[in-house]
């Protein structure tokens, strides 16, 4: 401004530029309105609608493709045989049924994010911390919820009576082998909330899993399977847990009083919101007798903005979400 009289031209920023330059204030401006609407057009507690396709992969025993908005995840379940004689330290007789799957390591879930699904996870590197954490969370949730029955994974053999058996004893049934399930979760497109989508993909794939009929062939001393699709059995998953993730956006900072800070709970965050919010809550609901959905797992990380009341609201929303998912999972 040489002479200071001419008004400088205004710099108009498009919405996208504003969001990229100052994501925090951009989100805050959206949330501070009397009727808060998130930049993606959803209200605070609106989840994205899931779509599920099962059985599209020909080389898997069970498979599912789950889309949650712009997040797309493919999951394939592949069953392989673990011979009981190969187990290095067989669990004793006293191991409970629930522990057996975990003791033997029969479920092997792996989440792969470096498929080019987002610029933050490029291939050529070992799996990132996020991917490792996701794999482990899915494994521990599969174990704690006791989703898979060890009986479904056993391959039994009735031994013929031999001479040294006592005549009044019935024929002995032994477990010759177990099915080990490799659960491979590939993220095709990532736009926030990978855990909910990956978990939904895992349970839908497990639901569609069909294990072939298998038997021990004493002559060849190996396990043989029937190639007929009619002679298969599925896994008994009577109770399906559903995960719901929330992100918490807070204006608090170390320089301000805590009471001045405002915070909002955003259900099912997308990629943009996940980058801005540091605090997340994941609640996993499963059925109880009342049909309300009891909480089987609750995780909260980062920040301290969310209080007791807000946590209660998250749990309530997770239970509602569980009821919505029942329709989607059982319907398709």
């Amino acid at each position, binding site marked *: 401004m040489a002479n200071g009289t001419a008004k400088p031209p205004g710099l108009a920023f498009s919405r996208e530029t504003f969001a990229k330059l100052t994501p925090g204030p951009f989100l805050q401006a959206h949330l501070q309105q009397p009727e808060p609407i998130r930049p993606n057009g959803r209200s605070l507690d609106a989840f994205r609608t899931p779509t599920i396709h099962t059985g599209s992969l*020909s080389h898997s025993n069970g498979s599912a493709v789950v889309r949650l908005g712009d997040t797309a995840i*493919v999951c394939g379940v592949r069953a392989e*045989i673990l011979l009981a004689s*190969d187990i290095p330290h067989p669990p004793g007789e006293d191991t409970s049924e629930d522990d057996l799957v975990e003791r033997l390591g029969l479920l092997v879930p792996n989440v*792969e994010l470096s498929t080019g699904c987002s*610029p933050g996870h490029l291939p050529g590197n070992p799996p990132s911390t996020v991917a490792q954490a996701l794999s482990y969370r899915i*494994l521990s949730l599969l174990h704690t919820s006791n989703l898979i029955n060890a009986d479904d994974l056993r391959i039994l053999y009735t031994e013929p009576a031999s001479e040294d058996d006592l005549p009044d004893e019935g024929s002995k049934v032994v477990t010759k082998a177990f099915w*080990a399930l490799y659960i491979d979760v590939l993220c*095709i497109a990532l736009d926030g909330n990978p855990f909910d989508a990956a978990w939904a993909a895992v349970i839908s794939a497990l639901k569609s899993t069909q294990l072939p009929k298998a038997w021990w062939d004493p002559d060849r001393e190996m396990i043989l399977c029937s190639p007929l699709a009619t002679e298969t059995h599925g896994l008994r998953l009577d109770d399906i847990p559903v995960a719901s993730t929330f992100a918490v956006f807070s204006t608090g900072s170390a320089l301000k009083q805590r009471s001045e800070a405002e915070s909002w709970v955003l259900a099912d965050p997308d990629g943009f919101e996940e980058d801005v919010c540091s605090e997340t809550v994941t609640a996993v609901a499963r059925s109880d007798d009342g049909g309300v959905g009891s909480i089987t797992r609750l995780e909260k990380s980062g920040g301290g903005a969310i209080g007791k009341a807000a946590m209660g609201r998250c749990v309530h929303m997770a239970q509602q979400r569980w009821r919505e998912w029942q329709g989607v999972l059982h319907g398709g």
Partner: protein
Amino acid sequence: MQTDRRRLNAPPGGTAPPVFAALPDTKLQRPTRSRKPDEHRKLFLRTGIVPSASGSAYYEIPPQQQQQTALLVPQHSSLKITCTVHGPRPLPRNAAFSPNLLLSAHVKFAPFATRNRRGYVRDASERDLGAHLETALRGVVIGERFPKSGCEVVLTVLEGEEDGWGAGGAEVKGEGWGIMTVLAGCITAASAALVDAGIDCVDLVSGGVAAVIDAGRRGDQEDGVVILDPAPSEHDGEIGAACVVAYLKSRDEVTELWIKGDAGAQVQILIDEAVKAASLVRAVLADAVKDAVEAKIGEAEDDAATTGLAKEGKGKSKEVVMTG
């Protein structure tokens, strides 16, 4: 077996894929080729499936016929490939100066892509596919327009072409012909994704495969027959040689040529047929790209119409004015 400490591993005892018993009373029919020698399988191509990437494409060759009997082991092979392109973006600070666009291609099979389960770490054959793809694409991209930048082309093969016909069992005595079709699919998908990402190219590049079958089997045709787009499960043990080309139709150039096997005197015909297959694929590729561009133009027009009107729809005013 080396355990991977960053992933969850197989149970310590080690597992084996199931072995299927032979069916006593049914004779399995091998899938046969029902299309003409110069006919390509139908394919599906779509761009823009991954919004978080600069460009993306999905390529699929659906299975030819429905499963004959209710068998667990698939009789027909299909091909499903997703491709994402990230870039062009600046090279990291510590990288050396490059006057051209640095292109890198990764090809990875999903663990469930093939009959035998694959690992998560890229093996030599996948790295080789990546190198082939990179040479095919390097001749198309105008690298001089993007100095000091890099571009990643990432392909995930969700379902790979079979190497042979399994006869209902789990084992396939593969001769590695399936990988040729996979490479051709990768080239086409990558080309569509590059266009979707808006990276300047001299032409669309498409991949085509041709093969020599029945060499020395029929008396009258010593040299065998050349066919387009072979599905290895339909020609179990009959393929003598196969050829993949990456072809630029409007410039009539070949950026990548890979011949495997002994084609004898028919090498020239084999290459010509592969080029013909690539031209057939190009029609689909051009259509997919054209559809995507038309959709984009339509969107831009809609946007222009809405920005002209009042913008109260989403609550917040969409523009911020900064004055100096």
